[in-house]
């Protein structure tokens, strides 16, 4: 299982498609920085069915005032949780 890290908003960049196409069936996706915009209700659909494998960095959501808008299907993690995700994954791949 790999951890993919995306920092671009799916509303402005197609990089999320590259991340998705490189993901294996068990891989996880963590949204950070502007990537957390993808955790919002309508935009979360860009990621198809990643239920349980789609994460967002809480402090990036929080800094942008987006915590209340974060879709329930997205798992929020703090920076410690970010480190944990990297521990659990065999390696990480960043998309920016």
């Amino acid at each position: 299982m790999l951890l993919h890290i995306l920092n671009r908003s799916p509303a402005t960049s197609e990089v999320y498609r590259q991340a998705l196409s490189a993901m294996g069936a068990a891989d996880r996706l963590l949204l950070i920085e502007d990537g957390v915009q993808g955790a919002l209700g309508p935009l979360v659909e860009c990621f198809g069915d990643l239920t349980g494998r789609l994460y967002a960095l809480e402090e990036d959501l929080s800094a942008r005032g987006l915590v209340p808008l974060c879709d329930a299907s997205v798992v929020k993690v703090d920076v410690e949780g970010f480190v944990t995700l990297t521990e659990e994954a065999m390696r990480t791949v960043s998309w920016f």
Partner: protein
Amino acid sequence: MMRYGILLMGAPYSSQAAHSALRFARAVAGRGHRLEGVFFYHDGVHNAARLAAPPQDEPHLVDGWAALAEDHGVSLQVCIAAALRRGLLDEREAARHGKQGHSVEPPFELTGLGQLVDLGLRCDRLVTFGP
């Protein structure tokens, strides 16, 4: 305990990448992992600019990296080819190129790209932060 490396390719204050990387670096060290090194490549080399003078109410990222190096013995490796092109020279390179003054100083060290490959393959995890 795992060995971590970080690759940073975003310039400070232009994108969030440097903030994210420094924050992550602190968290990795805080969890008891060994952060072996941070490699600065592409526009990330600007993180080594000793002349950076951000306003006082903003975090000083260059000093932040230096503090990380001091607190946790993390090596700060700056790609020499990417740095020289962008005007980031340590004392030795400045002398070699006949420049007055220098823009990089320890704990940042100018080094070759081979160090990135070495860091990436030696560590259990390499995490990249791009702009």
